[in-house]
Structure formats: structure tokens, C-alpha cells
């Protein structure tokens, strides 16, 4: 009467396509950033500052930690729906930063919501550089 559906199956298949590595993405965003900032080089330290900054643009999501916690190598939880969120750090979750379209989608959504504007290529490069440098749990 009630059908059981194996939901995670389709998600796994979708993620397997178009694999990129987090380092590829840092290089890509850094190259974009260098066109307006000659000599730009991604910085994990700037990425960390970006990640921990309290933007306070919205009440429920003032910062990245609202959903991702202050430890990107650990699982988080959506601040409104309570749905679990897997760790952001690739060392703790190899699916992260492996598909450009997905990365762009989440930067677009989360930056406009939390930061109040689109993020720059430099900010994206720095953030991924920081997350790559963050060890697994």
C-alpha cells in the first residue's frame, strides 16, 4: 500500500557526472579574480575570515555557521528545516566541490541570502582554499 522509495540512489548518480576537484575550482576562481586583481592568489586565512564573519543580513542566517556550524569538517543542520547538512570540508565529505554547476548554485543562493550580494571570484577561491585546508573530523 505504501511504496518505499530508495531516494539516495538518484542523488549518487547525479553527483558522479562532471567531476572536478576542489583544487581545480580554486584555480578556476583564482584565475577569474586575477583578471581584476593582478597577481591574485587564493588565501586560506582570508577564506577563514569570510567563513566566520557575522554578516547579519538576515535574522535566521547571520553567518555561514548558522547552518554549517563553526566546524566545516563536521555535519551541520539547516537552521529553518532542521535537515542534516553534510560537512563542507572535502576531507570530511569527498562529494563537496566536485561539480562546478552545483558549487555555483549554492554560492548564488547562500551568498545573496547570507552576505546580501553575490560573492566575488576572489571570495570563492579563498573560501574553497580554506575548506580544502581544513582537515577531516
Amino acid at each position, binding site marked *: 500500500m*505504501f511504496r518505499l522509495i530508495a531516494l539516495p540512489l538518484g*542523488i549518487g*548518480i547525479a553527483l558522479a557526472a562532471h567531476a572536478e576537484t576542489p583544487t581545480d575550482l580554486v584555480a578556476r576562481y583564482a584565475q577569474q579574480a586575477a583578471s581584476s586583481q593582478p597577481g591574485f592568489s587564493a588565501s586560506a586565512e582570508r577564506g577563514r575570515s569570510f567563513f566566520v564573519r557575522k554578516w547579519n543580513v538576515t535574522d535566521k542566517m547571520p553567518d555561514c555557521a548558522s547552518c554549517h556550524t563553526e566546524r566545516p569538517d563536521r555535519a551541520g543542520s539547516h537552521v529553518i528545516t*532542521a535537515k542534516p547538512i553534510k560537512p563542507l570540508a572535502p576531507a570530511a565529505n569527498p562529494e563537496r566541490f566536485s561539480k562546478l554547476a552545483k558549487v555555483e548554485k549554492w554560492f548564488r*543562493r*547562500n551568498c545573496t*541570502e547570507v552576505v546580501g550580494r553575490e560573492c566575488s571570484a576572489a571570495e570563492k577561491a579563498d573560501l574553497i582554499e580554506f575548506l580544502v585546508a581544513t582537515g577531516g573530523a
Partner: protein
Amino acid sequence: MMKVKAILICSALLASGSLLADGPRMPREIDKTWIEECGSCHLAYPPSLLTADNWRRMMGGLDRHFGSNASLDAASAAKITAFLERNASTRGQRNASSTLRITDTPWFVREHDEVSPAAWRDPNVKSAANCAACHRGADRGDYDDDDIVIPVTRR
């Protein structure tokens, strides 16, 4: 230090005939894009819980999705909209919501009228969007009444 105690609500209490008959079901057809996109911030809610018109309006305003930016590329949005329309409720006003919230449909309100205000506020529930807090099979599309556990946290 919080002590969590799960209280099992026995099926005899909840399993009235109408509840069993009304459990939401996942469509036979499962769209991969829908599961991935609509199931990332919350569960992919069964399409039969809103009307086709509700889903069309929802998909037309994803950049302001109940206060969140859930914007999608046009191709994915079109694919998901078509899937939702094909599998939307056929029961009219019972599954219609002027706010587009499933929790505001007459069906949802009636089905959950025995849930206490304290249970809704429980930190383990947090939000009515969190079906899986009580419906243990929700991530598999199973909302059957005999698999409901209402968490109650005592301090």
C-alpha cells in the same frame, strides 16, 4: 544537559481509518532532478500534498521561497514543474494552500490535530517542515501511521 526521551505513540491511538487512507504517497514516477533539488534543504515532499496550481506558483517564486533563496536554473525548474504538475493532488481544496505551505492545507491540519503544541515546539522537531522528526520513514517516502514516533525532550 538535555535528556531525550522518545515516546512511542502506539498505532492504536492514531490509526483511525481515515488516517490510514490519507497517508501521502510518493508517485510511481520519481524525477531525479526533483529529488535532488527539492530534497536538499528539506525532504522532497510528496507532490500529492499540494495542487498543480500551488506548485506552479511555488516554482515561479523560488528566489523568495518562504524567506530563502532557492533559485534554480531554468531547465531544472521547468523539468521539476512538469513533474509536480503530473503528480499533484487531484483532491482539490483539501490539498490547496493560499500560503503555499503544505502545513496550511485542510488535509495537513486535520491529520495533525492530535499533535500537541509542546511536540511542535520540541527542539528535536524544530519545524513542521521536519517530517522526519516523527515520521521515521519519511526519507523513504513512507508516512505510514505505524511508524510515527513523537520526540519529547525533557530538561
